[in-house]
């Protein structure tokens, strides 16, 4: 068993890929909690497509993917946040409009120059085994920045996610928190896109958060669990990829889907067992008694 676990580590490409997949999984799991709870699950998918437009612009203008993709992704995320704050347009519609338009720019540029189509295979499907040291440094920097921001803005992010209408009346600068979150999300997607690929990044963002939600009713525990589950998906998915000789993006996604299925079915089984053990006629919870005499008069009169 130990030999089975150790063998892939003798290869440098696997070590790089494993570090990248684990950190990217944890990072996606961390931001995914806020994405899922804000009911913006489509944003990972949408933003990664939007950033592709920036990636193509970078290729055409010979700037780094991280520079043009970063600017493009940041602007897209801010536009989505801005448009979805107008109550007439929900976040889902804002994501649809902004990201597809941005994606279309990328497609238009690709169609104008067929010769570089193949260069975007990594962006579309991920290339975890071709991760460079630059990719790793960018990933580490973004993961560190996001973790720090979540640490220091933990309460503000929680309040704005849970009760956005009320948060401002408790002194939270909701507009600033929304902008910071949008930029962190865009950075996280850019840093993980070349590893996981445009097509599979949504799963990396959403699945760990959903698994964690199924396993916990506490926000703090959900956040910690999502990071662990995301890292586990990257770690486990890489082993499956190595021994199954399957594309790593797909195995990471399928590993997460399998975890979801196990936790979901376990939850169903536990619920069925609880219902069976409870039986009919469970007691009403204790409610404090007492009321002003004048109000009791109304109860007697049954006038509400």
């Amino acid at each position, binding site marked *: 068993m130990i030999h089975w676990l150790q063998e892939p580590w003798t290869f440098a490409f696997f070590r790089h890929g494993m570090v990248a997949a684990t950190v990217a999984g944890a990072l996606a799991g961390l931001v995914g909690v806020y994405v899922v709870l804000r009911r913006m699950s489509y944003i990972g998918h949408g933003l990664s497509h939007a950033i592709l437009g920036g990636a193509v612009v970078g290729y055409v203008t010979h700037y780094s993917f991280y520079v043009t993709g970063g600017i493009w992704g940041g602007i897209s995320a801010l536009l989505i946040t801005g448009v979805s704050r107008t109550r007439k347009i929900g976040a889902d519609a804002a994501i649809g409009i902004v990201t597809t338009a941005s994606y279309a720019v990328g497609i238009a540029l690709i169609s104008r120059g067929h010769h570089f189509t193949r260069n975007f295979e990594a962006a579309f499907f991920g290339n975890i085994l071709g991760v460079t040291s630059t990719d790793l440094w960018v990933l580490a920097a973004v993961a560190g920045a996001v973790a720090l921001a979540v640490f220091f803005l933990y309460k503000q992010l929680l309040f704005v996610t849970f009760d956005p209408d009320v948060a401002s009346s*408790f002194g939270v600068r909701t507009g600033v928190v929304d902008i910071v979150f949008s930029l962190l999300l865009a950075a996280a997607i850019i840093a993980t896109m070349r590893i996981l690929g445009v097509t599979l990044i949504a799963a990396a963002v959403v699945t760990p958060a959903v698994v964690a939600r199924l396993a916990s*009713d*506490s926000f703090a525990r959900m956040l910690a669990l999502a990071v662990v589950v995301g890292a586990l998906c990257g770690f486990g998915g890489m082993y499956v990829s190595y021994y199954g000789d399957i594309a790593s993006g797909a195995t990471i996604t399928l590993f997460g889907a399998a975890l979801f299925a196990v936790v979901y079915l376990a939850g169903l089984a536990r619920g069925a067992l609880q219902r069976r053990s409870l039986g009919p006629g469970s007691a009403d919870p204790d409610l404090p008694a007492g009321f*002003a005499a004048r109000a009791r008069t109304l109860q007697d009169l049954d006038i509400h």
Partner: protein
Amino acid sequence: MTGTASPPLVEFAQAAFAYGGGGVAVEADLRIAPGALVGLVGPSGAGKTTLLRALLGQVLVGGSPVGRRPPRRVGYVPQLETIDWHFPITVAEAVLLGRVSESGPLPWPRRRDRAEMEALLERLDIAEMAHRHIRTLSGGQQQRVFLARALIRRPDLLLLDEPTSGVDVRTRHEILDLLSELNLDGVGIVLTTHDLNAVAALLPELVCLNGRVVAQGRPDQVLHPDVLRATFGSEMVVIEHDGLRLATDAPSHGPNHPHHGHLHHGPDHDGAAAAVRGAR
């Protein structure tokens, strides 16, 4: 508790409030004394929630923002219907959010915030629920959680949007008892309600709204057919029972009915007409 000599907790003189880019939702000429317990009543769309938001500093007044932050320590309890009950949050986590702007940059609560949260939960009789998910509580307990979130700010003004909406009779009694206790401790309270008899009639002071302040005064002053007609736009019968004024829909009267035009079954009250502000 209503003091007349001390400066008011809230004072609006001919102020107009509106959401963002919308038109004027409510015009208010209003004075609320420190330690008051005031109910805002009126039909749907009368501006009750808008006025609460104005007190929170979240709507426009006279075309400019009331302020980026509330000018005083205000606690706000939203309608329970607006809460996402599937959000993963425990009672303790929800209550501690009330300290968000004062508890420093670290993600975990300070020792004194935790102690204050525990004392509040103890006082509100939900201490044993601290680590339970908010969805698993009864309606009254859920209301107490969000009351605790507001109270942990140590507010001098507590605003509640329909605190008794959708709860059973016993829960309503608990909530009103609790608000009465808090008010006796000196907390000014403004709440909105649709329930004239089970809530509004029991409060010391009412403000009747219908796009503007129709009347303000004690229930025995404002629960009057003229005021209610101006507020709700329909005829209502007012009866008196055990010192309380109770309002109910008037039975329909055709023009040939012998009682047509004589809907006021309750005792006349000189103050009522005076309380109506331009109602006719």
